[in-house]
């Protein structure tokens, strides 16, 4: 696909001007890193702050009297537990109990939900939700083109953002949100993120993107904020063991296998795939996602074969150097009997068999 056919966020020219190295990310022309480099960007988010353009993410709105019933039908977490202005991580399910996508469900009120979905899945998700909407008194709208989304993450993120926001950020709890203004621009302001750090994600009119982006960089740079690319976003989420669609989860994996039982609320009533998931829980899993550390010198990368004895039992779903932990880590599905912490196995790294060990996750957990 040539660069002229790639989709662009409103900040595309800004990324280029500021030295972002652009790559094709699922059909989007996005910065993989800035001049500081992935390690510096990663460390900035762990120790100060970073800003990410995540405007490629999709936004889908569900409105109407039976919005909750529709959300409950298509997702595995229990959206009835949400209060107004609260958000929840969830799975958009197939009838097989596998993932169409992983999403964030935000409740404005019981008749208005706002879903944040993966960029490359947004059209698929919208079509999927629409196809299940008949029978529910609810209207589904794809708002992906209407919002820019920026993630400001790190221990100093709130301090950087507060002076330009007319809502009290300290009053928004983790995974809650509010509406307000960012430098005068109406915005949804959520205390969410995909890095394992505190921070906010803001959604607003794409026409204001460049001004808001530059304003945040100007305010944040003296405090150590760096613009960050997708490579740092990936290493940050991996250290925090957050799943990535197309890697840990897809339409062949269930939330139970992905070690996401906490978003799989079988007791909430009927939903797509519930029966399959209930049976899987009843019969027990045959495999589960684990975190591992590479013990030998070497890096296990995405797709590398995982071996027990001479048998390949799976592959690395995500593997990378962990810049903050300074270890080589990864995630992989292993047969249940090999998932206990401390279990040793091997990874085929381009013909070399390297020792790895199942370790507790998340690999990194911020101190509160």
């Amino acid at each position, binding site marked *: 696909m040539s660069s002229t056919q790639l989709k662009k966020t409103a900040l595309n020219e800004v990324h280029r001007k500021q030295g972002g190295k652009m790559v094709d990310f699922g059909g989007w022309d996005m910065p*993989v*890193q800035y001049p500081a480099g992935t*390690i510096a960007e990663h460390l900035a988010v762990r120790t100060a702050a970073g800003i990410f353009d995540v405007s490629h993410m999709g936004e889908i709105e569900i409105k109407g009297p039976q919005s909750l019933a529709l959300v409950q039908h298509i997702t595995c977490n229990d959206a009835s537990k949400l209060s107004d202005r609260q958000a929840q991580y969830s799975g958009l399910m197939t009838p097989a109990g596998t993932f169409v996508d992983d999403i964030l469900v935000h409740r404005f009120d019981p008749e208005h939900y706002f879903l944040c979905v993966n960029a490359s899945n947004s059209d698929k998700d919208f079509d999927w939700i629409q196809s299940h909407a008949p029978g529910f008194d609810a209207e589904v709208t794809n708002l992906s083109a209407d919002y820019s989304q920026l993630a400001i993450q790190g221990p100093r993120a709130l301090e950087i953002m507060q002076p330009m926001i007319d809502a009290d950020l300290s009053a928004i709890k983790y995974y809650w949100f509010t509406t307000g203004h960012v430098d005068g621009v109406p915005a949804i302001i959520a205390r969410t993120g995909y890095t394992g750090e505190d921070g906010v994600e803001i959604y607003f009119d794409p026409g204001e993107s460049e001004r808001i982006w530059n304003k945040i960089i100007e305010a944040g740079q003296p405090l150590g904020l760096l613009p960050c690319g997708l*490579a740092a976003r990936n290493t940050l989420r991996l250290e925090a063991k957050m799943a990535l669609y197309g890697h840990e989860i897809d339409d062949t994996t269930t939330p139970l296998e992905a070690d996401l039982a906490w978003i799989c609320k079988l007791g909430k009533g009927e939903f797509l795939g519930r029966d399959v998931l209930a049976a899987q829980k009843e019969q027990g899993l045959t495999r589960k996602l684990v975190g591992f550390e590479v013990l030998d010198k070497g890096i296990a*990368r995405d797709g590398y074969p995982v071996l027990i004895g001479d048998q390949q039992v799976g592959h690395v779903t995500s593997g990378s150097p962990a810049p903050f932990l300074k270890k080589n880590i990864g995630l992989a599905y292993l047969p249940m009997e090999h998932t206990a912490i401390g279990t040793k196995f091997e990874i085929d790294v381009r013909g070399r068999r390297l020792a790895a060990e199942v370790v507790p996750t998340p690999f990194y957990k911020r101190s509160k």
Partner: protein
Amino acid sequence: MAYPDDLHYTKDHEWIRVEGDTGTVGISDFAQEQLGDVVHVQLPRIGETFDAHAHFGEIESVKTFSELFTPVSGEVVAINEALADAPELVNSEPYGGGWMIKLKLANSSETDKLLSSSEYEDYVESQKED
């Protein structure tokens, strides 16, 4: 500065600086930029001999890895030990502290087949347009 003109280059993005019968080998500024932050460089042992265009090591960055190829044939007479603790030198000083191996040249005329600075620059530009 991106491609110093006292070096010879390959289409695999290595460079070689010839001094007497010895050549110092590293990767180009373009190559280090493509790789991103380098975290590990796997180098051969002193005394190993290689043909030209032979696989002599590997370089790993956060995001990816790349194989290293000899620009010319020869025997490894030195390796850059500093890269074990400071692989980021490949990024910060690709033509200086980020060098990888020194080869005792088997045949000094082999460098005639390599790219000059301007030829390499043209090659890099043609790659960028793809």
